């Protein structure tokens, strides 16, 4: 009797458990449909600028979600809100359907949200594993068990196909490898929502492919990736869904299967974009730049350029393609006389300018749009007019009789250029640091073209500019080419190089890898040259 009752109870108990289990399973399936993260009506303002205006974003489990928009559209702000760096003015964030409030990135990390910024947060002198466990609590307060941590890291890296040596020093790693360390750091901390801010900007095409494979592995395990970008091609390639932001507002969220490149571009910019330009045929003229076997060192005394020989003629745009940091900056500086060559010869306009002063290069007919406009190109505390007068300040019209510097004349020239180049500033006497990046670049452009140079070096002329300003700058370069200017375009944006150059030279580790003609040489081949595939065997042989 007792036994039977017991058995019955037991049976009842099991049935209950089964039903409960079923119910729980049911619950789990519903939660799988529920978005992992949901941001509702996020608004964030900075002073007078609304960076995010009632933006909604929901990211599903196991999804790569792209956040697409121009520079200044509010992508990074939105992600910094999610990462706890900024507190939103209004709006709510839900994680697994639960409302969360984050006061700092530490809160976000504890909740499984990780972010990889454009600039890596790594300490170069430490090893990979040291960087990864930095700021993490150790199991044993007295002993630092690096071996154990390294073992866990190796497990983790093999699981996601992220090949890395835990004992390598970060300073010895390539940019792509450093990015892997950042990803591993996030995964090691138990991140299941990984935010990546423009991760492909510094990578070669091959490294981009590797990164995409890793991201696919990561989301396979139910994690999510939010991918910030303004490059249409890669967004379509990698993401499941795309949210487009424009001027701080959410335009739409679409599935990447249902949308074309042109539609995306239109959503992003708000109008049709023509990324292809008409380039009138121009017959090339005299040599304006001739470099023969130029070598130079970088700031650390290592070889930056080795045996560079190239020519630029009137009426042509020669593009220098390559991943950042392969000697492009040194190339521009050597031509401008800002850096000494160790051997070789440079001629501008058939005048020997090897190791000349910066002033002499300018006098011979060089203009230079420097890579970093805020450090090289502009004196930020000076007004727009003073920045226009910066070059040739001791010459007319800025200085009369060689002694009287007339600020009124600088203002007059600046007013003219302001109208001609549509520089948006309240007043040409206001400090140039108050201008937006695009308008600062226009100030540099206006000044450099105003001098009517024979040779123009345009280094990363559209970096950090939105599509509208980019289009403007690129059109201007083509226009100046038609007016017989010789242009050396140095850019790490391959699309830009392909769109406007007549010839392309690919630079890798300070060497010219080869020449390509847009439309004739395939992009894949150029990509291979950019990755240094030609010399890789040579250098391996040396080691």
């Amino acid at each position, binding site marked *: 009797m007792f036994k039977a009752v017991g058995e019955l109870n037991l049976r009842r108990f099991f049935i209950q458990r089964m039903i409960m289990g079923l119910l729980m399973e049911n619950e789990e399936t519903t939660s799988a449909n529920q978005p992992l993260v949901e941001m509702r009506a996020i608004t964030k303002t900075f002073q007078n*600028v609304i960076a995010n205006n009632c933006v909604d974003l929901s990211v599903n489990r196991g999804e790569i979600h792209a956040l697409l928009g121009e520079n200044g559209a509010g992508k990074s702000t939105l992600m910094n809100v999610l990462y706890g760096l900024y507190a939103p003015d209004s709006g709510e964030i839900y994680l697994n359907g639960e409302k969360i409030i984050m006061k700092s990135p530490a809160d976000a990390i504890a909740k499984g949200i990780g972010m990889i910024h454009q600039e890596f947060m790594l300490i170069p002198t430490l090893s990979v594993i040291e960087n990864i466990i930095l700021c993490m609590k150790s199991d044993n307060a007295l002993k630092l068990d690096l071996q154990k941590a390294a073992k866990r890291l190796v497990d983790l890296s093999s699981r996601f196909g992220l090949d890395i040596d835990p004992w390598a020093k970060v300073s010895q790693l390539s940019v792509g490898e450093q990015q892997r360390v950042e990803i591993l750091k996030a995964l090691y901390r138990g991140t299941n929502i990984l935010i990546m801010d423009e991760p492909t900007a510094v990578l070669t095409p091959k490294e981009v492919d590797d990164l995409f494979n890793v991201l696919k592995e990561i989301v396979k395990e139910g994690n999510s990736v939010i991918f910030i970008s303004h490059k249409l091609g890669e967004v379509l390639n990698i993401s499941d869904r795309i949210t487009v932001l424009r001027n701080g507002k959410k335009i739409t969220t679409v599935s990447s299967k249902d949308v074309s490149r042109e539609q995306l571009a239109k959503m992003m910019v708000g109008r049709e974009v023509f990324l292809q330009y008409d380039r009138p045929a121009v017959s090339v003229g005299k040599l304006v730049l001739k470099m023969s076997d130029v070598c130079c060192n970088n700031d650390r005394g290592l070889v930056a350029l080795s045996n560079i020989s190239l020519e630029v003629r009137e009426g042509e745009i020669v593009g220098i393609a390559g991943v950042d940091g392969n000697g492009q900056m040194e190339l521009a500086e050597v031509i401008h006389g800002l850096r000494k060559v160790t051997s070789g010869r440079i001629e501008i306009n058939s005048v020997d300018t090897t190791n000349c002063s*910066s002033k002499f290069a300018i006098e011979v007919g060089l203009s230079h749009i*420097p890579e970093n406009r805020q450090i090289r190109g502009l*004196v930020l505390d000076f007004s727009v007019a003073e920045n226009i007068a910066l070059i040739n300040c001791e010459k007319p019209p800025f200085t009369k009789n060689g002694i009287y*510097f007339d600020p009124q004349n600088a203002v007059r020239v600046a007013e003219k250029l302001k109208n001609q180049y549509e520089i948006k500033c309240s007043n040409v006497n206001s400090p140039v640091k*108050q201008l937006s990046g695009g308008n600062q670049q226009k100030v540099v452009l206006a000044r450099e073209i105003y001098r009517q140079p024979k040779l123009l070096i345009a280094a990363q002329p559209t970096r950090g500019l939105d599509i509208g300003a980019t289009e403007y700058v690129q059109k201007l370069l083509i226009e100046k080419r038609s007016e017989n200017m010789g242009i050396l375009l140095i850019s790490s944006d391959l699309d830009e190089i392909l769109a406007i150059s007549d010839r392309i030279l690919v630079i890798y580790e300070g060497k010219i890898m080869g020449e390509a003609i847009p439309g004739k040489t395939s992009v894949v081949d150029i990509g291979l040259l950019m990755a240094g595939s030609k010399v890789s065997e040579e250098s391996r042989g040396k080691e």
Partner: protein
Amino acid sequence: MMKPLINKKNVTKHSHNKGRIQAISSFLAILMALLLSGLTISITGVNPFAAIRVLFSGAFGSSYAFSETLLRTTPILIASIGLAISFRCNLTSVGAEGQMIIGAIAATFTGLKISLASPVLEILVCIIAGFLGGALFGAIPGYLKAKLGTSEIIVTIMLNYIAIDLLSYLLDGPMREGGSFYPQSALLDQSVWLPKIIAGTRLHAGFIIAIVFDIIYFFLMFRTPLGFKIRAVGFNSKAAEYAGVNVGRSILTAMMLSGGLAGIAGAIEIFGVHHRLLNGFTAGVGFDALAVALLGKLNPVGVFLASLFFAALKVGSNTMQHVMQVPTSIVYVIQGLLILFVFTDTLIKDKLLYFEKRLKTKQSGE
């Protein structure tokens, strides 16, 4: 709630306000320094309001007092203009004291050795000698900075000691007045003394020279390509280099002009006040000039007002000591507090801007 993005009107209004806010914050800095100074004075058991009133009447109360203040203003103004030139070039020179001494030595030596038919010409030659002496002494840190990147702060501090000891050596030996008991040079001939500009006072023509230099400073910095280049190097030497400016040469020029003006300040102190070379004739003017250049925000008018203010403190503090028995050293406390608060005025400015913004948002919210 939602306000439009920046519009043009807001931007211009904002930049107009900036000058006003700068003035208010400088004023607040001085006010706070005076308040704290008053507190310090009251600790010594003296009514601070009375003390400060005596201090100012001692500096401005009578025409003689005022002439004394202007007399003290003269070397401070010239030396601080010199320092302002180097500061504009982003060079933190501390060398005005030493450069003044070298300038004074060069000028006095010339004055004692040569005798020209025209005294005006002779004074001019001596002042030029003072300029050259200071300029050459300023060229040392300038050259080292331009060629080797050596810190101009340390070099100028060290050179100050060299100048002080050199002066004391010269007055003990080669330049000592024959048969004199004191370590001092021979008296300059009365014909080369700087003429008095107000009878019955000690105020001499050097004050006019100082005012002229203040005006020249404005034109040099804002109306010549040289000044433009010096400012460009000071704000951003990389951009200046890119723009074809010879950065090293600009640094050297700025340091030489800076030293040269300090040298003139030293020469004028000798030819206008002491009429012979003495130990310690600078009375710390070279260091006061440092504070004055900063307090005056490197602006020609600001530097003039700040020199006047510092000179008034010096002159008035003597009266304050006589009348109220407040030690002169209290004035050094006041000067110290002033400098401290001047450096915090950016902080005050930010707070003011913040309050203004809050006020505006409140108004627009209602």
